[in-house]
Structure formats: structure tokens, C-alpha cells
């Protein structure tokens, strides 16, 4: 591909831009207005919404679960007594009662409330058995009645009382209030949410937040902790999204600052700023027109990147314009020349950057593919706005006398870059050796990279809610993560058989031994049908402790199951289906650790296959989602990097019409990726859905400078016939532009460095390291390599 012919084409484009400048401005304004109108439909997707598609095994299993057991999500409030005493005092009981009443009355889709006030307790005695509510006749005031109710809830030990260290801690200082939710469907969905299922969890979360933060529950005597997916969604919406907004706003200020430095006029700042905002807003508006929801976690990345690239592209055009303007003094002709010189190389960098983001479409996770699609669109639209509007903007104004002090139009800084290129080429072998050694040192770090996708690791410890999340996780009854094992037989009544029930008991015992299972007191936090059967069996046998077990005769077990399904219908139907063939076991986790979680999941699957060879089984819940997300993040990271590497290499090969040149151009771009990978491994920055984007992004951006450099070098060789001189000329022409664009990109991404959101801060660090590394590589290894390999054809005469 001949660069000169491409440049001629862009020269024509530049002329057309000037001739039709008013018409072009009108068309752009109209298109922007139409696209931006879509912003009225703009919406975020929250939580795990969109992480898995409907065909995913996880979603299929969730659907199966919800068909049998109802809504997988519920909400909870952990009440922790702060000063002396426990939750059984009259005052605390009234607090628990009031919270429960408000949850039941105010939360949409409220189903069943469970708390120490509402709980059903089967009690056996010599006469028979009784299903008791400890506060059936209201909360008493006299100490005797209070003590009686307390003793009823806390009867026996944690081994013979399913409530102890499950609903209430053994010291009585912590207790849960749970509210199960109806499926998000039916009349309530139509009336309150206009049929929009996705809006429900956030509304529920905010309602819960409002209840917990209301004046009546402000006290030093106790603390309330919200829990559940809807609550997490509301937290994300309240704290995380504004944080992403703040970063975008800081990014905007940095962009304005750089525009002010380079354009030095209010008009010059305003127009590119409006063009950039217009381009980004148009993309989001157009996507909203098509009903595409923005991913709340990743949204700041394409916006900040878009703003950074907008300034970068502008700098290329403006610097080239200035170079010619100084030389000729003819404004319009300089504009045409700048479009002619920059048009192709900037467009090519746009295409490679887009390719790196399009690579995310191959990742099996919707938020990442959303990010890739959006970033690619933003890059292209920003380019379009800048490439069309900036030359038009520059064409307004008067001509002036040419600056003859430097015929080349080069500044002192440009000349320093030129001399640097000469120095590097003279020491080329030493430079290559040093660079190679540095890179080799970073390679082992790449193999230390882990994946960590849980909410706590990603948000870190500096967000306003981090302390509460940490307290909730470490509380005796508290937990943040859990999972559910679902076992399903084909034949009805399978769990009425003692052999299957014994297998279930063995599974529970096994789950208790896993490293991530939460223990409260001396009991693993595992919920299943067996605790109901234990209670019922004991109650039917005069409350004797020796009967606190699952019966070992088929007929007795079958009847106990039927009776439990009738007498304890609500609790029973939470864990066993109506046909007694599908059951669930829920496990609370003490913490989350990716590798342990993956190991635990594998161990559970093996155990399930061993214990229930004739049944279908699956795992559900946050741990399973996180483990699967980790797997996909790692796989997706490799895939997207691999794809962007291949596609960019192909583009370079095509652009330079040479396989050798294409591959050699890739070498300096691999360097920053190795650098970033090494830093991630050595400093323990795990792969998550934010950091996974860094390496392909760096590759896509870093290659831009290589393209500029190689294009100029090619032109230089055509002109001078010498690599040495061509490289010097290249550095003189674009050395400072490369520095400036990298400086701008780093400055833009530095807005993430001060984010309290951990994953954003890490993205900031890694991107700055990667971009700086890429620039250093372009200043060192690139000219050295090009000089050694000479991939752009033979020299016309000997240098030196």
C-alpha cells in the first residue's frame, strides 16, 4: 500500500472539508441531536445482570430453581447488639418487630418473614407436639415472660436447636431478619414496575436502605446490616455509579486542561470539548435508542478513553497544522496538508484501537462485550468528530507570514528528539540487549497472575460501605457469599427413601469440611430439609434429644416428610419440592477466594457424583457465579488478547505490505504488555472484569505510535534513502507528538489512580505503566530494531 497515494486521497478529503464546512457542521449538529435524544432512555444494568446469557448453564439452573422454589433472591437484616445485653430485651424485640413489619409492609414482592418474633418452633412434650411462635401474644413487658420466650428460642444447644447460630447467635447478641420474595411477575410487576423485571431488585434494595436508615432505627445500642442481591444493587447504584461519574468528570477537566494548553483559545477549547462530548453522548444515545443498557461498572473506561483519544487525535492534527502553518503561513493550505499527512495514520490507529476492543466481543461475558462494542464505537465516533470538526475549526482565521527561523518548521524539542534517534541507532545493539533483559525479568510475573472477581476484592476497603461489608462478613452470623446445591431425581418421592436421605446427610457433613464454609459456634452454616426433619422427629417423640435425627426407616421417614410438608409447609417448601424428588442444600461462606472456590466447586461436584449417581445436580449462587466468572475472565483475557494481537498484526502486515515489517512493528507493542503482565503478577493485581481489559487496550493504543512512526519512517526512506536519516526525521516530526499523546493518555487515566474503588485504581496504575512502557519502547527498542532489521526495504546509499 503506497502511503503517498493514501495521503493524496486524504488531501482531497481535507479540501472537501473546507469547501463544505458549513454544511458539514449542520449535518453533524443534526446527527448529534438525533442520537442524543436517545439518552432519555439511558439505563444501567446492575449487579450480575448481563454477566450470563439466558442460555448459560448458570441461568438455566437458576430458572430450574425458581420454577420449583420461587425467587432465588431474598433480603436480610442482621441485627447486632452493640452495648451490653442481647437481642431478647423488650426494647430490642420491638426494634426487630418494627423492622419486620416495615419489611413486610413496604418491600415490593414481600413474601415470608422470618425472625425470632415470627419463627415457628415445633416443640415436643409428653402429650404431643406444638408449633409455637415465641411472641404469639405480642412482646411482653414483664421479665418472666421475656425470659420464657428467650428460653423457648434458645432451648437446648446448637446441636439440637436449628435456630442457634443460624437465626440467632449462641450469645444472643446477633440475629437475622429474613424476607423471602415472590417471583418478580404478575400484577405487582405491572402496577409498580410497568412490567420491567430489571427495575425490581434496585427498587427493593433502596426500600430496604430507606428502612434501615430511617430515624427510628438510629441507635448506639445496636447496628443493622442489610444483605441480599437487591441491597447490593442499591449500594452499587448509590455509591459506585457516582464514583464512576466522578472519574469521568475529573477526566473531562483533564481533557479541558490539555485542550487549553494546546489550543490556547476559549473557542479552541470549547469546540473540541463539545465535539468529544457530542461524540460520546451520541454513542450512548444511539445505543439507548436500541435499548442497550450500559454496564455500570465498566462505563467510565470507554468514556475516559474516548476523551483521551480525542485529545490525542486533535494533537496530531493540530501539531501537523502548526508545522505547516509556521512553514507556509497559509491557513487553509496548512489544514489540507495536516489532513493529508495525518489522515491515514490516524485512521489506521483508530482501526487498530477498535480491533483491540472488538476482541472483547469474543469473550463470553456480556459486560465485557458491551465494553468492547461501546469502546470501539466511541473510538470511531470520536475520530469522526475530531477528524471532521478540528480541521474545519482550524480553517477559520487569518493567514500570517511564514516563520523562516527553521525551514523544517521544527522546534528545539523536535531537534532534541532527532538527536535522540541518532544516539539510539548508534547504540542499537546495547539498547536491544538492555530492553530484552528487562522484559525477560518481567515474564515470570505473568505466570503469577490470578483472577479475583468477587465484589469485596474489586471494590476494596476505601468505599463508604466497605467497613460495613467487612463487619458483616466477620460477624458471628454474618456472611456475604453463599451457594446452593440442588439435587434432582427423576422419580417422585426419591427423598422419602432412607438411602437418598443418608446420602444427603453425608453430603452435608462433607460440605461442612470445606475450607470456605462458614461456621458459627460449633456448627457449619448449612440449611437443608434435614434440620426440619430433625426438629419434627424430636417434637413427635416428646422432644427427646435422641430423636433429633432423621428417621432410618423408609415408612417413618416418608410419613415424617409428608407431615412436615403439611405442618411446616412454608419452611419445608423452601428446601424440598412437592414431589419429594428435588431438594436444595444452602451453604453460607466465610469469605471468598478464587482458587479455593474453584477447588471447592470441583470437590462438591465429585462428591455429588459419588453420592447421587442417579440424580441430576447443580450448583447455584454467588460462589458459583464468581468461580465461573473467574474462569471466563481468564479465558476471555487470553482470547481477547490473542484476537487483538492477531488482528493488529494482520492489519500491520497489510498496511506495510510486508509480513516482516508487520511482525517487527508488533515487537515494541508486546513490550508494554509484558511489563503490565509482570507488574500484575509481582504486585498481586488480580485479573478482574476491569483489569482484563488493560492488556488488549494497551496493545491497541501502543500500536498507534508504532504506526505513526513506521509510516513516517517509510516516507523518510522514500525521501532520504537512509534508515538513519529517516529515523531522525521521524523523531523530529512526531517525537514530541508521541510524547504528548502518551502524556495526555496517562494524565487521563491518572484520574483512576485516586479512586477509592480498588479496581479502578489498579486500572489507572496498569494503564499508565503500559502506556509509558509503550512510549519508552518506541523511543528505544523500535528505532534500534528498525535500524538492525531494516524491514522497509534497502537503503539507497550507505549511512555513516
Amino acid at each position: 500500500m503506497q502511503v503517498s497515494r493514501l495521503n493524496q486521497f486524504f488531501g482531497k478529503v481535507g479540501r472537501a472539508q473546507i469547501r463544505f464546512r458549513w454544511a458539514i457542521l449542520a449535518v453533524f449538529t443534526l446527527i448529534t441531536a438525533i442520537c442524543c435524544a436517545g439518552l432519555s432512555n439511558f439505563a444501567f444494568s446492575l449487579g450480575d445482570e448481563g454477566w450470563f446469557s439466558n442460555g448459560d448453564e448458570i441461568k438455566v439452573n437458576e430458572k430450574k430453581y425458581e420454577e420449583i422454589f420461587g425467587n432465588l433472591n431474598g433480603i436480610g437484616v442482621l441485627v447486632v447488639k452493640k452495648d451490653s445485653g442481647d437481642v431478647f430485651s423488650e426494647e430490642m424485640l420491638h426494634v426487630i418487630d418494627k423492622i419486620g413489619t416495615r419489611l413486610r409492609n413496604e418491600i415490593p414482592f414481600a413474601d415470608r418473614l422470618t425472625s425470632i418474633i415470627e419463627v415457628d418452633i415445633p416443640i415436643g412434650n409428653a402429650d404431643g407436639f406444638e408449633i409455637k411462635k415465641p411472641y404469639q401474644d405480642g412482646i411482653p413487658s414483664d421479665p418472666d415472660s421475656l425470659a420464657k420466650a428467650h428460653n423457648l428460642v434458645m432451648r437446648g444447644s446448637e446441636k439440637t436447636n436449628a435456630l442457634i447460630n443460624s437465626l440467632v447467635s449462641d450469645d444472643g447478641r446477633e440475629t437475622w431478619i429474613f424476607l423471602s420474595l415472590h417471583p418478580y411477575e404478575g400484577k405487582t410487576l405491572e402496577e409498580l414496575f410497568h412490567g420491567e423485571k430489571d427495575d425490581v431488585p434496585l427498587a427493593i434494595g433502596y426500600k430496604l436502605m430507606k428502612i434501615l436508615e430511617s430515624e427510628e432505627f438510629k441507635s448506639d445500642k445496636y447496628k443493622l446490616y442489610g444483605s441480599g442481591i437487591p441491597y447490593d444493587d442499591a449500594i452499587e447504584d448509590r455509591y459506585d455509579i457516582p464514583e464512576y461519574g466522578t472519574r469521568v468528570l475529573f477526566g473531562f477537566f483533564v481533557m479541558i486542561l490539555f485542550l487549553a494548553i494546546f489550543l490556547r483559545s476559549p473557542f479552541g477549547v470549547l469546540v473540541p470539548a463539545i465535539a468529544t462530548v457530542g461524540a460520546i453522548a451520541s454513542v450512548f444515545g444511539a445505543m439507548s435508542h436500541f435499548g442497550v443498557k450500559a454496564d455500570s461498572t465498566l462505563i467510565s473506561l470507554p468514556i475516559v478513553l474516548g476523551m483521551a483519544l480525542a485529545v490525542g487525535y486533535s494533537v496530531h492534527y493540530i501539531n501537523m497544522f502548526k508545522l505547516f502553518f509556521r512553514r507556509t503561513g497559509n491557513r487553509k493550505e496548512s489544514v489540507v496538508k495536516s489532513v493529508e499527512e495525518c489522515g491515514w495514520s490516524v485512521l489506521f490507529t483508530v482501526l487498530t484501537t477498535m480491533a483491540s476492543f472488538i476482541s472483547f466481543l469474543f469473550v463470553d461475558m456480556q459486560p465485557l462485550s458491551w465494553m468492547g462494542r461501546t469502546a470501539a464505537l466511541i473510538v470511531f465516533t470520536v475520530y469522526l468528530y475530531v477528524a471532521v470538526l478540528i480541521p474545519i475549526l482550524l480553517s477559520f482565521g487569518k493567514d500570517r507570514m511564514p516563520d523562516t527561523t527553521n525551514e523544517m518548521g521544527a522546534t528545539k524539542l523536535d531537534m532534541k528528539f532527532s538527536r535522540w534517534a541518532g544516539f539510539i541507532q548508534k547504540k542499537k545493539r546495547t539498547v536491544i540487549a538492555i530492553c530484552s533483559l528487562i522484559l525477560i525479568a518481567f515474564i515470570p510475573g505473568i505466570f503469577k497472575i490470578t483472577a479475583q472477581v468477587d465484589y469485596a476484592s474489586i471494590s476494596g476497603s476505601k468505599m463508604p460501605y466497605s467497613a460495613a461489608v467487612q463487619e458483616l462478613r466477620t460477624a458471628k452470623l454474618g456472611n456475604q457469599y453463599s451457594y446452593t446445591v440442588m439435587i434432582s431425581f427423576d422419580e417422585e418421592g426419591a427423598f422419602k427413601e432412607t438411602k437418598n436421605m443418608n446420602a444427603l446427610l453425608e453430603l452435608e457433613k462433607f460440605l461442612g469440611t470445606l475450607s470456605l464454609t462458614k461456621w458459627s459456634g460449633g456448627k457449619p452454616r448449612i440449611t437443608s430439609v434435614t434440620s426440619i426433619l430433625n426438629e419434627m422427629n424430636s417434637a413427635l417423640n416428646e422432644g427427646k434429644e435422641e430423636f433429633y435425627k432423621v428417621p432410618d426407616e423408609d415408612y417413618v421417614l416418608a410419613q415424617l416428610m409428608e407431615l412436615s410438608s403439611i405442618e411446616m409447609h412454608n419452611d419445608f417448601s423452601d428446601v424440598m419440592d412437592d414431589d419429594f424428588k428435588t431438594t436444595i442444600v444452602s451453604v453460607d461462606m466465610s469469605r471468598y477466594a478464587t482458587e479455593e472456590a474453584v477447588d471447592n466447586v470441583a470437590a462438591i461436584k465429585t462428591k455429588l457424583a459419588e453420592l447421587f449417581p442417579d440424580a441430576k445436580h447443580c450448583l447455584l449462587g454467588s460462589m458459583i457465579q464468581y468461580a465461573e466468572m473467574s474462569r471466563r475472565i481468564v479465558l476471555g483475557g487470553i482470547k481477547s488478547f490473542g484476537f487483538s494481537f492477531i488482528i493488529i498484526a494482520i492489519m500491520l502486515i497489510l498496511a506495510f505490505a510486508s509480513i516482516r515489517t508487520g511482525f517487527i512493528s508488533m515487537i515494541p507493542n508486546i513490550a508494554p504488555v509484558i511489563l503490565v503482565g509482570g507488574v500484575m503478577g509481582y504486585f498481586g493485581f488480580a485479573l478482574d472484569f476491569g483489569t482484563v481489559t488493560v492488556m488488549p487496550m494497551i496493545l491497541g493504543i501502543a500500536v498507534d505510535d508504532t504506526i505513526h512512526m513506521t509510516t513516517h519512517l517509510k516516507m523518510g526512506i522514500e525521501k532520504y534513502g537512509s534508515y538513519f536519516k529517516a529515523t531522525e526525521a521521524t523523531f523530529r516530526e512526531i517525537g514530541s507528538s508521541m510524547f504528548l499523546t502518551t502524556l495526555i493518555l496517562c494524565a487521563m487515566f491518572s484520574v483512576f489512580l485516586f479512586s477509592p474503588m480498588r479496581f479502578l485504581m489498579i486500572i489507572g496504575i496498569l494503564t499508565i505503566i503500559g502506556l509509558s512502557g509503550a512510549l519508552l519502547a518506541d523511543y528505544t527498542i523500535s528505532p534500534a530494531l528498525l535500524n538492525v532489521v531494516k524491514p522497509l526495504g534497502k537503503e539507497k546509499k550507505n549511512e555513516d
Partner: protein
Amino acid sequence: MKNLFLKSIVASLLLVSASFAQTANEIAKKVHDLPSGKTSSYTVSLTLIDKNGKTRNRELVSYFMKEGTTEKTVIVFKTPRDVAGISYLTYDYPDKPDGSTIDSDSWIYLPAMKKVRRVSGSSKDDDFQGTDFTYDDLGTRSLSKDNFALLGSEKVNGVDCWILEAKAKDTKAKVSRRVTWVDKKTFVVQKGEYYDKQNRLQKTLTCESIKQIKGYWATQKMTMTNVQSNHKTIYEIKDQKFDEPVNASFFTVSSLERELVK
């Protein structure tokens, strides 16, 4: 003149609403006091239908006897196999003169354990045998538990009905409001709507095959649909007999234990 006209409208509206308030309580009492015979027996077929349309069936026989003011009921499960033989005996007592309720006495017999156990603590608010009906829905709910209002009248299946509203006095009651359509002539409920604490429709009741047997009005088929969970229960009565001799010994703990009630 105009003023007088307005006053007369206001006065007549007040009169109408006052008479409605009075009539609501009267209608509720008439529904509550519908005669049900000294004895009765019948077979119940329960069909539980989940939201996917999957059905489960249970069959039970029920015997009823009034002894003084005490109402005695025995229920024996016939199917499915694993519940066959499980029996319940319940004694219900009338409200005290001050309107407060007296707890029922209940016993359960489990053939697998060969034991009768006394059962207490079940609330009338609770589900009846894991169905969409509560004990209250199938029995006669104490009048003292609700405030009544008459919302108007409407035809249901060609029958002229009062629309009677019962609001639970207990703010914690699972069903906060019941609206029933009551036949103006017979005071038999034709259909109902049940609202939860957030005053959202929770369940709907439809009544079919309403007929007189020996002069007693009997609803042979009731369908309760939980519109929030999309679960449905059909309660069908067969072989209903009134005022025919029933073995009084059926209503004792020992006959449960000896599996005499079939």
C-alpha cells in the same frame, strides 16, 4: 331552595351509608350463621396446581358433629400412599361473650409411629394442609376479628350479590382485607378476593356447584388461586351428607389410635 336540596342529598347519603354500615355487619353475621347441620360427612378431593400446570392430588374424608356448642371434626387422609391413614381430630369452641376466641383442641395420628400426638399452635391464618386455603377460608372466621363494610352490589354469574368487605383488626394478619360477593337471597359466598398487608390482591376464590342438600346450602367446588405465586388449589366435595347418623366414637382420641375412622 338550592341549599335545602343540597342538605337533603347530604342527609340521604349519610342515611344510606349508616344503613350500609349496619347492613354489612348483619350480612356478615348471616353468612357466618348459615346452618350446616348437626352432622355431616363428605369426601374431599384436593388438587394442587403449580405455576407450570403440574398437578398433585390428595383425597381425604371428613366427619363433622356438633355437640352442644362444640364442633368436632375428624379428617382422614386416603391418598397419596404415604399420607394414607394420617388423621386429625379437632374440637372448635365458640367465641367467648366478650368476643375473644378460644383455642381449638387438635390431635394428629401418624400410622408410621402408631401414636396420637396432641397438636396445638396452628393458627387459623395458616395454610390448610399445605394448600392455598387457610383454615379460616374453609371454616367460619370469628366475626370479632374483622370490621365490615358494604362496598355495593353486583351480579355474579347471574346472581345478585352484596359486595362485603372484611378488614382484619389485627394489623399483623396475613390477609388484611377480604372482599366477598354474597348472594342477597341465600347469603352464600359466590366469589372472593383476598388482599395482603400491602393491599395487593393475593388470592381469588371462585365457587361453583352451589346447591341445597337437605335444605342446607353447600358449595361443592371451590378454587383458590394465589395470583402472586400462580399456585392454585381446587377443593371438591363429593358424597356430602347432612344430618345423617355419624358414629360419635369417631370423635375420640382412642378411635384415631385404633384406626377406626376410615
